[in-house]
């Protein structure tokens, strides 16, 4: 039954007109959207865009996560995962351990393996190449989505190669795409306070764009809900949108909800559910050129991830099964969801579940 939607916040009316006409939103629009208390109004606008792009389809993937090591030179304040070498809780998986994790699940219809770790100070570049090649030998058809832009830049430094040559070598070893982490918030103010030694915004965007030019798609992320302002979020989105205008290589945008527990910012609270939904909706509205908006259920919980399908989201990530980064930051979510659970969650939200591969081609489930 079609109904007209009434905003509580009339500042959203002009934005509705722009959205209906397919006009690109500007920075001021983004600030107005984040400032609005009309949560359902934001959801309504984002849903207009989402339905225009994807109809009732909602995507999920049968994937496996491998976090090969948490040893990291960066020491970002918002992170509960990273450890210095030799610290309690530091770990690194051997090549054999990594391959065993893949071998253990060969009977499952996994189409993507998602591999992310820290910026390890001493593992040689050959380790990463062998990791990719070794997994591909075990599971030739699997898509390897591996290494944030930050890891790639770090590997280039270690190997003494350009970013392009590093990506090319990784690609030849089996890399299929990049997961998009490590973007945090691009604001120099925030980075100076939270992650001064980490690869900066220009470097991050350069790695992503280089990957795109080499035919490697990437995702993009934003870690929100710590010390950034709404305007800084908007600027982050606009920088991604500009990069996408250049290369068109971003597949999905994934806002990552900050989890404070066990981090250097544990006195903070993390974003509210309202902020989570708002951020997803505004992302859908600003990023008119990135095809997919993903709610990572490990961070949001399955319930909020389901609800986000009505707030601009078209992808709920996947089965996962073993995730360390968010869980070390206190996430109470399960380690995995079954295909049946994911499909039921999508259907109950009034959407049609579509199992996808990494590049969003449909998989017969």
């Amino acid at each position: 039954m079609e109904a007209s939607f009434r905003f509580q916040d009339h500042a959203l009316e002009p934005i509705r007109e722009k959205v209906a006409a397919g006009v690109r939103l500007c920075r001021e629009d983004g600030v107005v959207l984040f400032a609005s208390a009309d949560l359902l109004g934001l959801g309504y606008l984002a849903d207009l865009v989402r339905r225009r792009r994807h109809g009732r389809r909602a995507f999920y993937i049968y994937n496996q996560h491998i976090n090969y090591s948490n040893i990291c030179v960066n020491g970002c304040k918002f992170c509960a995962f990273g450890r210095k070498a030799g610290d309690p809780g530091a770990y690194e998986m051997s090549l054999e351990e990594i391959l065993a994790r893949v071998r253990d699940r060969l009977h499952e219809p996994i189409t993507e393996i998602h591999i992310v770790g820290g910026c390890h100070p001493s593992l040689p570049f050959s380790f990463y190449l062998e990791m990719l090649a070794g997994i591909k030998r075990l599971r030739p058809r699997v898509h390897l989505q591996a290494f944030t832009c930050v890891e790639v830049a770090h590997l280039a430094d270690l190997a003494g190669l350009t970013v392009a040559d590093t990506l090319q070598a990784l690609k030849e070893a089996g890399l299929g795409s990049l997961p998009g982490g490590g973007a945090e918030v691009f604001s120099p103010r925030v980075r100076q306070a939270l992650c001064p030694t980490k690869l900066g915004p220009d470097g991050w965007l350069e790695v992503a764009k280089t990957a795109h030019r080499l035919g490697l798609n990437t995702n993009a992320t934003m870690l929100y809900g710590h010390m950034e302002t709404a305007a800084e979020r908007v600027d982050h989105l606009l920088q991604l949108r500009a990069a996408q205008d250049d290369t068109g290589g971003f597949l999905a945008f994934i806002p990552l909800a900050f989890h404070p527990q066990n981090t250097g910012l544990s006195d903070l609270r993390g974003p509210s559910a309202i902020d989570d939904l708002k951020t997803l909706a505004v992302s859908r509205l600003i990023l008119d050129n990135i095809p997919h908006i993903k709610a990572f259920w490990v961070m949001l919980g399955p319930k909020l991830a389901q609800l986000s399908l009505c707030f601009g989201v078209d992808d709920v990530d996947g089965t996962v099964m073993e995730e360390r980064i968010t869980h070390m930051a206190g996430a109470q979510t399960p380690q995995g969801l079954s295909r049946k659970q994911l499909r039921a969650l999508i259907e109950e939200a009034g959407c049609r579940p579509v199992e996808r591969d990494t590049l969003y081609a449909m998989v017969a489930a």
Partner: protein
Amino acid sequence: MSPESQHLEEKIGAADRLNFAEAGRLWDLDLLTLGRWADAVRQRLHPEPRVTYVVDRNINYTNICVSGCRFCAFYRPPGHPEGYVLDRPALEAKLLELKAHRGSGVLLQGGLNPGLTLTYYEELLSYIRSFGLAVHGFSPPEINFLARQFSLPLADLLRRLMAAGLSSIPGGGAEILADRVRREISPRKGSSLEWLTVMAAAHHLGLKTSATMMFGHLETRAERLEHLFKIRDLQDRTGGFTAFIPWAYQPGGTALGGEAAGAVEYLRTLAVSRLVLDNVPHLQVSWVTQGPKIAQVALSFGADDFGSTMLEENVVAATGVGFRLDRTEIETLIREAGYEPRGRDHRYGLV
């Protein structure tokens, strides 16, 4: 926009009551429109920008129960080694803990335990009252069971419990007020009519009560509406319901099994409840089953009350769903949603 939705929206805007067929069409709306309509009604009923909650605690005085409902993971049949009746020291510790939290009352509920005397119940009530705490106690199946057990007419039993200290009645045990469903999930718990009869008797004696609905198991959406309309009809006659609390069946550890309804179905049901129950003042979120995040969002889907601090919760926890929230956390969740948190008692008076 369809003429039909326009008609519905006009009726709701004019505070004009929906009939059963009209209410059935609400399920066809998209979630956000449904939420927006429910929120508009909530703003009309409660224009003050506040959300209430109560500092209380649950006390489940016994888990021994002859009802044997298939959706329940809490009860133990008589003679079971895990059956319990709280003794005085345990009870006292719980009451002192609540006093330390500056609580206003106790939500007192238990199984249908054939081993207890009427004196036990009366002493239980007066003991709790001796701590200066109100008792929101005994859901209708318990009241019915006691009336039968002690061969008293409902009104007489209620008067005795009131004399001993009962101040209001929780709306539990309603499950779904459709007898087809009750026969399947809780055949020994009594009919819809029996539940409604207890509430009517309580209201006539001046006892305020809430009403609940446990959804997401064997019932159809039409049966949920049947439930809502029965509540609305009785409320027209008595005006004794303070609040309505829909909550989602949690299958863990139950004989009935199955899957729990998700957040979207919860929010839809909450919003439909707000739109149908035009005569019940308050609508409460169920953070125990939905968690703090969805409970917070539910404040945009028609709810105006955050329920209670509980301190302990045993019935839902027995299914393996274990959310916990303290007063500070509840207040923060309410503030983040743009409302002022306000404490209340079990009769929805502000404290």
